[in-house]
């Protein structure tokens, strides 16, 4: 959801913004409360997941991750997420382009719709997809209990990320640059390829990374449409869920840790990308 509020952009340098303030009593109290809140709800519980995953040694951790069903779930999750992220990279950019550069009746509605996957509960997303693309599909397309169904669910929930990161950049893009390129003899395609695309790439990749992290952690939307067939359609989050239900918290913690690490690596890459982007921008 970070797309909705572009967060990591540095604040505009204001006069005196670099003023150094002492950490006053008020700051310390506020900081203490915030850290306590975060610790009790986020940090300590997450740390316990990592700790628990290695509770019975690294060997057990490795065994838990590489049991056939867990390994299948992990590879499916990461593979499907990568494919879905790539589809988003292309189609998300295309949609952003149409929303910014094209004009047609009802565009405002289409623009609003982009955020629907953020607003719609994931279980409802899974249910509506199953209704249209399930065994009772009025279109005659049955993707239930297949990997394509998993991909469809992931495409649904990750739709806004690339669109919403590329869109503002495209709006800000200086039209003079394109006109300058055209005046220098560049064809529309050359202008897109050499002028527009390089300016969009950082935002496109950021959105793709966000979509990827969202996809690997997705649970609710895949529950109904995937049918949770181990080795075939079970994603990592669902595998963790069934391990928790089966009281194997150590195994669940091991797979959780892998997911956390993959997500953090993706976000770290995103952070580097954004710095790269801001240096160029």
């Amino acid at each position, binding site marked *: 959801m970070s797309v909705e509020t572009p967060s990591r952009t540095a604040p505009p340098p204001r006069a005196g913004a670099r003023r150094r303030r002492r950490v006053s009593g008020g700051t310390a109290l506020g900081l203490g409360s915030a850290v306590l809140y975060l610790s009790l709800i*986020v940090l300590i519980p997450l740390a316990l997941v990592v700790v628990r995953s290695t509770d019975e040694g690294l060997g057990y951790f490795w065994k838990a991750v590489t049991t056939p069903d867990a390994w299948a779930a992990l590879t499916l999750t990461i593979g499907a997420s990568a494919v879905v992220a790539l589809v988003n990279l292309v189609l998300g950019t295309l949609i952003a382009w149409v929303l910014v550069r094209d004009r047609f009746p009802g565009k405002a509605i289409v623009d609003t719709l982009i955020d629907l996957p953020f607003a719609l509960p994931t279980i409802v997303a899974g249910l509506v997809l199953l209704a249209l693309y399930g065994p009772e599909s009025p279109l005659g397309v049955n993707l239930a209990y297949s990997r394509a169904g998993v991909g469809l669910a992931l495409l649904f929930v990750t739709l806004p990320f690339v669109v919403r990161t590329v869109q503002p950049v495209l709006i800000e893009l200086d039209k003079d640059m394109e006109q300058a390129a055209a005046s220098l003899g560049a064809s529309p395609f050359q202008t897109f390829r050499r002028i527009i695309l390089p300016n969009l790439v950082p935002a496109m990749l950021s959105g793709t990374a966000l979509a990827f992290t969202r996809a690997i*952690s997705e649970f609710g939307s895949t529950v109904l449409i995937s049918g949770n067939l181990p080795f075939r359609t079970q994603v990592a989050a669902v595998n963790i869920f069934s391990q928790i239900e089966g009281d194997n918290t150590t195994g669940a913690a091991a797979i959780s840790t892998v997911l956390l690490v993959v997500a953090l690596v993706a976000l770290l890459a995103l952070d580097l990308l954004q710095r790269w982007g801001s240096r160029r921008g």
Partner: protein
Amino acid sequence: MAESGTIDTSTVDTSTVDTSTGTTAQNGTRGVSRYVLRVIAVGYLFFLLVLPVALIVWRTFGDGLGPFVEALTSSSALHAFQVTLVVALWAVALNTVFGVGAALLLVRHDFPGKRLLGAFVDLPMAVSPVVVGLALILLYGRFSPVGGLLESWGLQIIFSTPGMVLATVFVALPLVVRSVVPVLEELGDEQEQAAHTLGASRFQTFLRITLPGIRSALAYGVVLCLARSLGEYGAVAVVSGRLVDQTQTLTLFVEERFQNFDQPAAFAAATALALLAVVTLLLTRLLRPKD
């Protein structure tokens, strides 16, 4: 499969989106490519978002309003509504207070480790809802030292409302902070300083200057947070124990009814949630800070 969907679109959908405004008449090839791109974009969204949601709504109301109302007024459904509301309101209240406080800290104060705090605030976005549930069980479950201690004081967290509140707080945590931070940055601190020089205390300045300055961004964040809280499924599924008529929220109700072949009830609840989502969309549209 997404590709196959879009290819269908280009044939099916041409009639619905043929209204080219043509304000900037381009040369022939550009006009055509523009049209193709538009059809792909609109078609993709139509088959991925619009049609599935519309189908559920149509199925729900296919036999009129009666079955819908009936399905949602069963005692289980009403109970699920109530649980959802209680959990969501608690989570929104907690995250609003935290969100405003953390945003003020991140924007108006300097302290060592500020970047790290910002990263921690964003962390929940990278965590799978199921992992959230597991994490909370590990700390607050009956068999953990903390959970055991709390339980000996008569406070049950997991499989009970407090745990569901914690899970919801976790997943929705960054929303208020991230909505308020950019607006606080843009607002600057000059108005607050002016209020100080005019004799206002910190608290008076917050109430009379800062809060009115961020109110629409705050409302935006609260709406996002509320929508996320009402719709959370995975984390709540883990920590609630999914006890029908006890810890069942509306999203859990949808899943449980569907698995038990009670499609009308599942569809009705899903439609209700989808309508809430649409209301959320419209509200955020109104409240979104103008660029």
